[in-house]
């Protein structure tokens, strides 16, 4: 009996022109998303590599480590092409100094606002918008459509248990829609390495998990459609309801929740913090200058040129360290305050957004692709630890890129300096969080998606048991 019902469900969906058309559109879009994603990755990688090489090239031929102008760049993640997340919004370039706070600049959308106008067409977008509509389009009349055609009454004139019927309906429509969708997705996956995206084992696991999340998300909308179909008498009203629900879930709730959180939790602006810092820094600067004047006054009668210079250097180094330490304390304090508030707002916003499965899916996909909000902090963390390594290195080279350097006019002999060897420079590598960490981060959202599935599934089941089949 179950098999028969399942079989009918599969045939009924797959045999239609509607299916052929919509599936064709979805397949083309999915393939397009993979292709465009791969090309995009290629472009970003070239950009990234070009930038790194240029940065090195530009420092070539320098003779003093103190003169180097070193930058690090955020390498593109292979999966960012499919799930762009915030990777286009955050700064990618960081000027590295041995001291001071780092700041990432040049986000892609800031550099090319043209891309920000319509944003990108990525796999995540296809899933959230197009496939959810696809699910609704095939689920909205699952129950009430049969009733309108009279087939529901006819079927139940036979000894058919209702639970089996609705189960077959849910499972059948899921299989009939998901299995065909796997074809373009798998073709897309095969395309990735062929188009030059370096996919290692971890990336494959991530991609598989993204697709799994997508399937769960698809399931949410399908079960929801069947659920609503089992609660309404006419397919036109269930469609209307679903469309309204869709607009809210996909387009409104996620956006509105962020805005509401912005209103609810006040986070001090960057400008305010910058001002605090610069004020403090100016204050310290004045103190330092005074200290220096005093030092000079004290040592003005020291005739030993070299000795004086050495003392001076030492004194100023000390002062610089002192300054750095103080600034660091303040910066950390201010940043921590801001970060705490920002984290609270973020938590609030995301919790609210997760009312919508679309938000859950987006967040899970971004976590898995390492393009979630955590990308920025993990990049900054990597940059900060690199800064420490860099500073140590620079110290070993006795060079300081900040603070005071002496331009000595004079008659000292200029000896021919040696060129620096850039290979000695520590290399910056950015490693995205481990696959296991990424999966761990996405688990709550995956769980939520699963929960939505179960709730709607159960809802559809119960609603159908009470459904008036006449």
């Amino acid at each position: 009996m179950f098999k028969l019902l399942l079989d009918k469900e599969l045939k009924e969906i797959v045999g239609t022109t509607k299916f052929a058309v919509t599936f064709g559109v979805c397949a083309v879009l999915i393939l397009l998303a993979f292709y465009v994603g791969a090309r995009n990755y290629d472009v970003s990688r070239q950009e990234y590599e070009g930038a790194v090489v240029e940065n090195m090239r530009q420092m070539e031929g320098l003779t003093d480590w103190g003169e180097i102008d070193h930058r690090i760049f955020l390498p593109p993640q292979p999966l960012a092409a499919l799930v762009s997340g915030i990777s286009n919004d955050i700064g990618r370039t960081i000027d590295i100094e041995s001291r001071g706070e780092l700041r990432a600049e040049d986000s892609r959308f800031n550099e090319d606002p043209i891309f920000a106008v319509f944003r990108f067409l990525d796999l995540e977008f296809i899933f959230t918008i197009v496939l959810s509509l696809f699910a609704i389009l095939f689920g909205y009349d699952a129950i009430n459509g049969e009733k309108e055609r009279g087939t529901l009454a006819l079927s139940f004139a036979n000894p058919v248990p209702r639970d089996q019927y609705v189960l077959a309906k849910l499972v059948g429509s899921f299989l009939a829609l998901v299995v065909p969708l796997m074809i373009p997705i798998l073709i897309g996956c095969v395309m990735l390495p062929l188009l030059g995206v370096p996919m290692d084992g971890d990336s494959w696991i991530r991609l598989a998990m993204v697709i799994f999340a997508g399937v769960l998300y698809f399931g949410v909308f399908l079960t929801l459609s069947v659920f609503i179909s089992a609660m309404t008498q006419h397919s036109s009203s269930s469609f209307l309801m679903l469309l309204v629900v869709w607009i809210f879930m996909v387009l409104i709730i996620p956006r509105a929740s962020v805005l509401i959180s912005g209103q609810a939790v006040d986070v001090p602006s960057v400008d305010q913090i910058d001002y605090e810092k610069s004020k403090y820094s100016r204050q310290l600067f004045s103190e330092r200058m005074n200290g220096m004047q005093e030092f000079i006054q004290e040592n003005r009668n020291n005739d030993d040129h070299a000795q004086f210079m050495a003392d001076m250097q030492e004194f100023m180094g000390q002062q610089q360290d002192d300054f750095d330490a103080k600034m660091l304390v303040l910066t950390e304090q201010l940043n921590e305050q801001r970060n705490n508030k920002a984290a609270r707002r973020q938590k609030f916003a995301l919790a609210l957004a997760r009312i919508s499965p679309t938000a859950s899916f987006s967040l899970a996909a971004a976590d898995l692709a390492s393009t979630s909000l955590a990308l920025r902090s993990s990049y900054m963390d990597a940059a900060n630890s690199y800064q420490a390594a860099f500073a140590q290195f620079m110290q070993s080279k006795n060079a300081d890129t900040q603070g005071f350097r002496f331009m000595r006019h004079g008659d000292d002999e200029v000896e021919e300096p040696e060129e620096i060897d850039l290979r000695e420079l520590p290399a910056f590598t950015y490693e995205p969080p481990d696959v296991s960490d990424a999966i761990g981060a996405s688990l709550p959202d995956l769980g939520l998606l699963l929960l939505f599935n179960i709730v709607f599934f159960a809802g559809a089941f119960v609603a159908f048991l009470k459904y008036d089949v006449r």
Partner: protein
Amino acid sequence: MFTILVEKELKAILQSPKFVATFGVCSLLILLSVFIGIQEYHASVDQYETATQLVDQSLAEATSFFAMDNTVYRKPSPMQIFVSGVSFDVGRLSKISSREDVKLEQSLYSESPLFAVFRFVDFTFIVQVVLSLFAILFTFDAINGERERGTLKLALSNAIPRGQYLFAKFVGSWLGLTIPLLIPILIGVLLLMVLNVPMTGDDWAKLVALIGVSILYFTFFIALSLLVSSLTKRSSVSFLVLLVVWIMLVLIVPRGATMAAGQLVSVPTVAENESQKDRFRTDQQQLIREWRQEAWKNRFSALEGASREERRAYYDANKDEWDQEDRDVREEMELSVTEFNRKLNEDLRNAKLEQERLAFILSRFSPSSAYQLTAMNLGGTNTSIKKRYEDQMFAYRESFSSYLKTKQEEERAERRRQARQSASGGRMIMFLGSGGEAVDTSDMPKFVDPVESLSAVLKPSMIDFGLLSVFTVLAFAGAFVAFIRYDVR
């Protein structure tokens, strides 16, 4: 006859329960978007004001013209309530200094990526995505639905010209859907006044134009639905076709066009650009260094074998002149670096403009992007916002640097005087910017936000406006032809 038909159409729409539900949702969304937009606008104005105040304060507290940093901010415009466009993607501020280029940085999205995760929902978005769907929802079965119910045969069994019937259908649905939508829009406009949004006369004109374009865009979808409905026999088919067309027009074509343009026109990357700039500067600095080594060698060459005191005296006598020489050379170099950077930036900007032009041309195949582009244009939040601000900031930088230069000149002279007085002989170590007193910055030039004149805004909008009109007329004409031949059975 015509009025009877229009009246029937109005009643059919307004009385359907579907209408109440969807209209409620649309109104809610429009009002929500305007309300949140206003709140967000106020918040960003606050932020802007705090930020500029802080800059002013830090300028006022500055004790020297040497360590003087200036930052200018982009002022939020009330129009971004309706069209946020790229205003959150483009940097909010630029540092102004003679050493650094003008560059907008710290966009809202890069500073608070939380907002970037789902982006904002503004009035334009609601119109573009939700209202177009709303239009389809009410007109997808305009013709074939009547056929299915048998009312088409019944109606046309009377002496009604088909053209008139279709036109009445169009006018009726248009009135039935547009007039109700004007209510939340007008309430939204009222909110602007109640919540004290400072709108100038030009802003009002732009807003009216924006609402006009929104209605035109909405009208296009009604005409399109009529076309598809009179091309198909069954309403289920026409709905499916319209949904696919909607996905294509609203979601896919605009994005696809941008990506295609990105592939077709290559633009040097920022990194390449930056490094080219740096390379030029390094080269120039190297030249200067070499020149100076040479110069110092020459300057002292006359004193070969002279005593320390003689050298000192010689040095003191000539110092000012030499310094002046050094400075002149340095300034010359700075000038050439600035010129080079400007040229490079312009090249980059031109390439980007070219890419952008192509992207926009391609994307205008979809009325949806035509609408979005013209809305952003009217709201002043289109991609050229960056160019406008950077141009203005560049001009400001010029006046600011020249101001700074005169001031620094004065300060230097002053310091030197002081230094001469205090340090009689001994080593000359000059510390600039270490004073105690705040300097007077009251006559510093102020940054003025670029203002687009109304005509400059409206002119480019005309293209999109025309394009939307053409799309609408074409769709209606198509519907007309299809309906004349429609098989009413």
